[in-house]
């Protein structure tokens, strides 16, 4: 309970800092928390806002699904063999640390502007961490687990389903949490650079119009969503015995 209280105090402190910044910077550069929430409330009563949310949400959901399924698949394939794992790890890490935004034009050239490009770009961000975590988890399954499997004379299918999968679940979850965050970031960056709909587009238009209230309202909306979703993932994560 004290933990929840502390978290509340933190939120209040953040709002206070925001308010102070607002008072220093003025209305045109940083709207006050109250105004922002009012703006967010107004936005949330318009159908257009929800259309944008749906657009971003759809792209994000697809990107996330691709990231997780693709990442787990690739990670598993690469992790099963020591050599392929060792060979690909630095490649994956390099891809991870690449500023992928520079490749966005290429994505646009391949997929055109629209849903598929956004999904592809989101998945580019999310897939690699999931693959990396999965691969490392598979490579580092305790050898004694596999020896136990042999001692119990399990079939390869049984090993995969009853030992390998549950053994790597915690790491895969950790990867999925990072994948979640980065896919969302990827989709939003994609929408900010080139798009016709979605929250990123909304932010970008608002930037073009200097409409700080909308920017902050969307920022708050996204932040609350991200923190809440991550908290949920953390709860699931903690529920996995390890």
């Amino acid at each position: 309970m004290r933990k929840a209280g502390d978290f509340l105090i933190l939120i209040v402190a953040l709002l206070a800092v925001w308010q102070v910044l607002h008072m220093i910077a003025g209305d045109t550069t940083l709207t006050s928390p109250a105004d922002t929430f009012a703006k967010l409330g107004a936005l949330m009563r318009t159908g257009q806002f929800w259309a944008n949310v749906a657009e971003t949400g759809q792209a994000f959901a697809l990107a996330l699904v691709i990231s997780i399924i693709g990442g787990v698949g690739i990670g598993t394939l690469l992790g099963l063999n020591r050599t392929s794992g060792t060979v690909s790890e630095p490649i994956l890490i390099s891809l991870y640390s690449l500023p992928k935004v520079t490749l966005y034009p290429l994505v646009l050239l391949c997929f055109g502007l629209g849903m598929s490009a956004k999904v592809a770009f989101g998945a580019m961000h999310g897939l690699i961490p999931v693959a990396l975590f999965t691969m490392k988890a598979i490579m580092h399954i305790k050898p004694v687990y596999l020896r136990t499997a042999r001692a119990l004379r399990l079939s390869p299918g049984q090993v995969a389903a009853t030992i390998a999968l549950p053994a790597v679940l915690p790491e895969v979850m950790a990867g999925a949490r990072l994948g979640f965050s980065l896919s969302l970031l990827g989709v939003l960056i994609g929408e900010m650079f080139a798009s016709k709909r979605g929250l990123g587009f909304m932010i970008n238009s608002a930037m073009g119009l200097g409409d700080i209230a909308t920017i902050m309202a969307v920022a708050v909306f996204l932040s609350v969503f991200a923190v809440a979703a991550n908290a949920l993932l953390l709860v699931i994560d903690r529920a996995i015995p390890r």
Partner: protein
Amino acid sequence: MSRAAVAPKYPSAMPAPEVHARLTGVTRIYGAGTSGTKLHALGPVDLTLERGEFFSVVGPSGCGKSTLLDVLAGLAVPTDGTVEFEGKAIRGVPDGVGVVFQEDASFAWLTVRDNVAFGLRRAGVDAAEIARRVDYAIGFMGLRDFANAYPSQLSGGMRQRVCIARTLVLQPRLILLDEPFGALDQQTRLLMGDELLRLWRETGATVLLITHALDEAAMLSDRVGVMSARPGVFIDFVATGWPRERDSRIVSDAHFGAITARLWEKLRAESLKSLGSAP
């Protein structure tokens, strides 16, 4: 390699000898097939386990004890020599052999009960039978209060007991234990030894126990094999001559001291050797 060099104080209570498993001229060389560096880990070893015997292996660290177990369990193929179990040459892990590894092999994602039931479920035993056997094994291993706990909530020693229970429920005829009490302090170890003895008596299984602790070996076994530094070969077999009905109280027996001293003597030279080598 004299047998029973220490005169048995009690009459032997072993049944008439019958060969249960046999290793003949077994060696194991890691990296034997490849061009890389080879490591001669074990052998040549000759060993006969009699049915129902409690046999312990002691030897310096890294001498090849776990390798010996792997070969006997069919988890590793000997580079040379033959391994037989119940009269047949083994290929893969034979039915009727149970293994408890040196490392903690409890499945972190399953409760104690599910861990213990794991092998039975894979083997397709029916649910009522599983419940019965699992309950018995959990009780036997003193885990009743922790049946629904996860391994992370248990101490190292308790986890090792989970692994033992998981192996036991399958009712193996040959049980291979690789330092199952390594995570425990010496006192608790000896008490766990009592449980192991009870188990051995009740099931009539053949037991091969690998251990660092000389007093553990001296107290539990019918016979102790002493291994040399790597590549491990048996440099001595010591028959203890304990009755089948025995428990840890025998440590206050003078004969126990004599066995320990004998084991220690044999190992001293070997230990000095292996200590001198690299980390």
